[in-house]
């Protein structure tokens, strides 16, 4: 899966800010602990303050291994 890798500082700046009205950035960790934002957040970003996200380079995003298996009765 393709997403956009952030530095820790970039992730901190974006967290909780809007990329479009009423929809917030949500940086997420990959399997290595690096922070990423999604294609949708980059493509739909209309917040003039954060247009620099459109300069980010796409990279492979691998989800973390689940920390707990889903509960089964």
């Amino acid at each position, binding site marked *: 899966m393709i997403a956009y890798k952030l530095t820790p500082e970039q992730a901190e700046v974006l967290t909780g800010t809007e990329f479009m009205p009423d929809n917030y950035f*949500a940086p997420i960790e990959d399997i290595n602990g690096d922070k990423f934002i*999604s294609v949708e957040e980059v493509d739909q970003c209309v917040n003039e303050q954060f247009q620099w996200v459109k300069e980010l380079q796409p990279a492979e995003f691998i*989800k973390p291994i*689940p920390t707990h298996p*889903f*509960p089964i009765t």
Partner: protein
Amino acid sequence: MAKKYFFYKGVADAPSYLPLTTAFLTVIGIPDDGSTTIYGCTGHELWVGVNAFEQKGIDDGWLAKMVYLYLFIGGSASLNKFNFMNPADSDAAYRLTFSGGWTHDENGSKANGTNAEASTHLDPVTLFATGLLSFGRYNDQATKGAIIGGAGGYLYDWAGLASGFIDIGNSNGVSGYTRVYNGFVTITRANGTQISHYGNGTKQTLSQTFTSLPSGNILIGGNFGPSYYSDARFKMTFFSAALSDAEELSLRTANAALQTVLNRL
């Protein structure tokens, strides 16, 4: 008998609509006229459709049980976020807060399955400490994930690749039912020892003892962290006191009629 509202009753050219319909569509900003909406129907047809939905809920008793009811009408995050039951722009009114990769349009709000979730700001234990409640969804495009979840991991509708799990008020989810990714799904706890899954009208009842409902907001599209996000496209979701079989059928029928008006059945 519930009060009926009739269109164009009384003053000519002055339609009368039910209060929730009026408040909601006024906030959304769709005029009650002949202009074509993003749904392909006219504004007037949309008002009539939403009003009929509300009337059905009054007549058949399910509307009074609702806490939140998201119709995803408007086509943007700023409009799809509103709760039909109380379209105030506040957490206390259970207005959705979208985060991560969502796509909002006339078809609803689609989660990307990677990091998208929406907080309802509803902590169910504050209203349903005994767990007697219903929640549900009408969606398409789902292939995986926690479609709805929360309450500290004690309440969810999770559609896994191998099997699904549902839970209301226990540390362990239950499977053994036919999971339904898409369509109209309701999950109900009507007593302390069983929960029921209604998948597009097929009811399956499973044994699950209620133990507790920890504090925690209900999320749409996500739960349990990065490995469990859903890719569903939501067209309606609800949370209510426990619905009877008849109320579930009525809600499902009313939703189908509304979605037909919106050209997204």
